[in-house]
């Protein structure tokens, strides 16, 4: 069981002006590029396959295999699209990475594009984070000026253009086909599959869509070899990942560690829970993953371990809630988010989230009856797996899991005629209030 941090992507974050090309090259940045160019593109794909890298955007699909799906005999252009539409509540790894070390991403984009033989790549960044858009734009500009992008990169004969695209503010655009719709200038709504993006994605051409962290991991794999990468992590979840701890821990932040680390270790690294409080519940990978409790402190945080516990590793967005938090209130807030972000295309998500919010709001105010919990579960059952894309599956996760673990707390709202918690006590400034 690994218990130490393995800073790779985050290693240079503390450097002076780490986001500049100079700082990045100082550390040997863009060195992996020449190593990749010396290889056949197919060999780069093979290396990534061998490394066991799985998608860091949540679903954990093997990255090398995804690249291998691109039909190389297709006469249409091929595209790499980086999904930087990080919008999940709790997820906060790509945005710090792009702020701290955008060149890691750019170098990864070049190597990945080279591997799949794309001459055009797009970085689709969540539109709300304008500072990140600017930082990545500047990094791409620097890379062009330094000859890392453009024509005949490093004399390899390989050309690549990168477009940094700012989204327009929709969570659904993190869904890869909705992202493609948005990138093509249309409304962000998911597309019917098949055809899959690997065959007919952006502009009906073969397209690979990868998460920021997946792409950013590629340079280190090429530089250090797939064996190095595969030596970390667990049997089926290899390598390292950024674990984002937020909430009621003493030192929230990014902790880069091998997959398979436990929450107990991570909380220790983060200085423990907030003084005088206990862990109550947590999300392993953002609000779309069913929440877990203190009994899951020792499960290995890899794809298999979290799956076995009835949740998903997701984006390793560990939102930590202590005993001051009302789980009903937290669940209601998440559900309001999904209602607001439902794209409207399919019925269960559009109408279901509308209704779920109404039922949860009533419960939080202590209105209704215990049978409403069964109604909620039945609604969730009618939504889960019935909708067009995974957004609605994520929307019901907090509800079903919170009722599973905290049914009594829901009932307490009804018996006490309202929320038994003082929301002020769960805030970061609890106990520090100044009374006028």
């Amino acid at each position, binding site marked *: 069981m690994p218990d130490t941090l393995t800073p790779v992507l985050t290693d240079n974050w503390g450097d002076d002006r780490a986001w500049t090309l100079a700082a990045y090259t100082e550390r040997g940045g863009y060195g992996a590029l020449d190593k990749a160019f010396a290889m056949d593109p197919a060999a780069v794909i093979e290396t990534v396959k061998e490394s066991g890298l799985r998608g860091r955007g949540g679903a954990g699909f093997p990255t090398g295999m995804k690249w291998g799906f691109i039909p190389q005999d297709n006469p249409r252009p091929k595209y790499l699209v980086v999904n930087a539409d990080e919008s999940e509540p709790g997820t906060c790894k790509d945005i710090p990475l792009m702020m701290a070390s955008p060149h890691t991403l750019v170098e990864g984009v070049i190597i990945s594009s080279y591997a799949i033989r794309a001459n055009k790549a797009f970085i689709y960044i969540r539109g709300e984070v304008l500072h990140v858009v600017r930082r990545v734009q500047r990094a791409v500009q620097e890379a062009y000026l330094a000859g890392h992008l453009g024509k005949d990169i490093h004399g390899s004969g390989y050309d690549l253009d990168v477009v940094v695209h700012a989204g327009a503010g*929709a969570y*659904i655009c993190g869904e890869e086909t909705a992202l493609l719709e948005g990138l093509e200038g249309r*409304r962000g709504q998911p597309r*019917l599959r098949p055809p899959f993006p690997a065959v007919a994605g952006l502009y009906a051409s073969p397209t690979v869509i990868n998460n920021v962290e997946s792409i950013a991991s590629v340079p280190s794999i090429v530089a250090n070899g797939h064996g190095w990468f595969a030596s970390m992590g667990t049997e089926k979840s290899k390598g390292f990942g950024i674990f984002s701890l937020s909430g009621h821990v003493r030192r929230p932040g990014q902790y880069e560690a091998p997959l398979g680390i436990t929450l107990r270790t991570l909380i220790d690294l983060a200085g423990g829970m907030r003084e005088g409080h206990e862990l109550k519940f947590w999300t392993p990978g953002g609000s779309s993953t069913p929440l877990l409790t203190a009994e899951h402190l020792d499960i290995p945080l890899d794809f298999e371990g979290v799956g076995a516990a009835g949740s998903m590793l997701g984006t390793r967005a560990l939102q930590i809630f202590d005993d001051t938090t009302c789980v009903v209130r937290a669940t209601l807030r998440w559900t309001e988010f999904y*209602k*607001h*972000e*439902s*794209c*409207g*295309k*399919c*019925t*269960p998500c*559009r*109408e*279901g*989230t*509308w*209704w779920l919010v*109404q*039922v949860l709001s*009533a419960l939080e105010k202590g209105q*209704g009856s215990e049978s*409403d919990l069964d*109604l909620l579960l*039945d*609604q969730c*059952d*009618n*939504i*889960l*797996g*019935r*909708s*067009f894309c995974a957004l609605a599956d994520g929307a019901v996760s907090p509800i079903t899991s919170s009722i599973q673990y905290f049914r009594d707390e829901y009932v307490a709202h009804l018996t006490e005629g309202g929320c038994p918690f003082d929301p002020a006590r769960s805030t970061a400034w609890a106990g520090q209030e100044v009374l006028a």
Partner: protein
Amino acid sequence: MTTVPEKTDLVTLTIDGVQLSVPKDTLVIRAAEQVGVQVPRFCDHPLLAPVGACRQCLVDVPDAGNGRGFPKPQASCTLPVAEGMVVNTQATSPVADKAQQGIMEFLLINHPLDCPVCDKGGECPLQNQAMSNGRADSRFSARGGVKRTYPKPINISAQVLLDRERCVLCARCTRFSEQIAGDPFIALVERGALQQVGIYEREPFESYFSGNTIQICPVGALTSADYRFRSRPFDLVSTPSVAEHDACGSAIRIDHRRGKVMRRLAGNDPEVNEEWITDKDRFGFHYATEPDRLTYPQIREDGELRPASWPEAFAVAARGLSEAGGTGVLTGGRVTAEDAYAYSKFARVALGTNDIDFRSRPHSAEEAAFLAAEVVLRRTVTYADLESASTVVLAGLEPEDEAGMIFLRLRKAAGRAGSGGGTRVVSIAPYASRGLAKMHGQLVRTAPGDEAAALAALVAQGEFGIDKTAVILVGERLATVPGALSAAAGLAARTGARLAWVPRRAGDRGAVEAGCLPNLLPGGRPVADAGARVDVGADWGVDVPETPGRDADGIIAALGSGELGGVVVGGVDPDDTTDPAATRAALEAASFVVALELRETDVTRAADVVFPVAPVSDKAGTFVTWEGRPRPFEAVFSSPSSLPDLRILAGIAEELSALGVGRPLGFRTVAEARAEMEEMGPWDGERAVLGGSETALRPSSTTEEAGAGAPSSTTEGHFALATWKLMIDNGSLQDGDKAYRATGRAPVARLSPTAYDAHGPTVTLTGDRGSVTLPAEPAELDDDVVWVPANSFGNGVLADLASPGSRVTIAKGADQ
């Protein structure tokens, strides 16, 4: 897509325990229909691309054909069948049934309970499927759920209204507009439960096919200004019929109540109109109930028309005609085939003349010869052939305006993806219209008058690849271009391409078949052929006149000069004719005019006897499509005072016979006329040949003849006039629905960018018949060509400006 794809590879699967084989790529939802299971659905429509949005059609798939099942229910509208697949629908699977009930419950939470006042109530897929696949009571409202509400309906066009509350966001309307009509002026906007159908104010939802969105809306979200709140579906009686507005023969359903048509819907005929109709076919029925509708016969006495009884009118008409000397017959293009046959027989049997012509629009002798040689009895091209053709050449035809169903077929054919791509559309026209762009078509830019040369040139131009897999569609407008129809026939003969003639009016082709032409007798029998005359004469018991008659222009001229004294006119608008002023003058000059009309017109005002005729809703009949396909229909209403043309002609003929002139027609009813037509059958002898193919090869010289009298040089300010009728225009059969008319396109004059720059945004066109001022729009026309819509302003181009192909001058219009 409605026609079962021609695929021999079948896939065998099991649905609800029943094994069946269906063609590969069939969707599960449609395979299920074959075992008698209707899976509920909203967004699914067999003619639209699958979208999988409403999720109502979820089914359980325990085996996808590979031994593994889907863990969750699947949308059967997006799932193609697979060999060995096992599907359990709501009929056998509790999982599927619960999934469907869950979706239905979600759909209803934000749907208003206004079924009692909703137009769709009683024929509503949501209402019906909520009963069959939903819960008995609402858990949402029982717990005080709050519905999303909107202000009541908003106009998305003058005709189409949207109740956003009722919308279930299935996207059928938006997909229809984008995929089928090619008018993507409505789209879903906003997100989540606030998603709604929206428009972009600066590009209004002006589509000739917008009414179809109302019909395919699975709820009452889309309604028409015309029908909204007018009746309940269960109070209506439905009668299948055929649309009377163009030569497409679209199947329609007429819904009526207490003797009044309340609305018309598209019928489902995969071989003809699939499930679509034009807005003209849908909303154009109020003409029959306009206040100027004629309801009783009238005769002229002391210069004034006065009401008369039917027998008196018959007698007066017969006496007048018997004393008028030579009499011609003008039938117009709106009559049914049976009525056309009656006119044809009336001319020959009662009046003893071949002076009959259905062409109440510019025409030529060449056209009459072309119709006899290349059109009558021919059934060489069908709608399906348009889809399988490699190339379709359009000449003198703008399908979006003049034959809506041809337009939709060509758009479907041209947009079809897959092996070998779709049908290529090549249009010989003055400019690339929006309709041509929607058919992904290619323009052979041709100035009016040069069509013959353009057609002849297609043989030489290999790039167009005209061969026997191609189809040539020629419009009736080509008659105004000397040599063009011959050139089209020549092109077909040389390349093996199939040729079809597409008229504008529903009765045109039937009139050709019935012999409403000076050179043709019924069944394609040439007047010039003695054998054919004997054949007809033997049936009719008369000697058919030997000499070919006068065409419509000839009849008008002869009336003017006094060579003819009488004229029988049915359904002709003088403003449609070659020379409206001449037609009016001829009616004045005629010694005796018998008019058979629906409504008061310039013809009835000039007539000596006026007979009211039945509108198509009041009589049985047959329209013959441009393909030559007979489309019989039955009467919707039986109104004893509303007689078909043939009954009136029979009455006059009987009175004439009593005066010793001619013989009676021998039939009084549509059924009797039909029987006689069938008995006579088609001509099996030699058909007429198109006189001298050398005419086809001299298009340039004939073009100059046409331009005689006008300056032939392209001097500054002289423009060749190109024109056709827009689908929605001032035609009298479109009267009575303001909302419908408002969805038409505003009249503009189209000029080349150079000419536009020279003459500005408003232009005044002056021709030999008058001047009109119109807003101008630049388009890719030749610098010396101007296009205007034929009947969208004043009395139309023919009456107010000049004849098509002639030259007009353009001046900067008055500032507006």
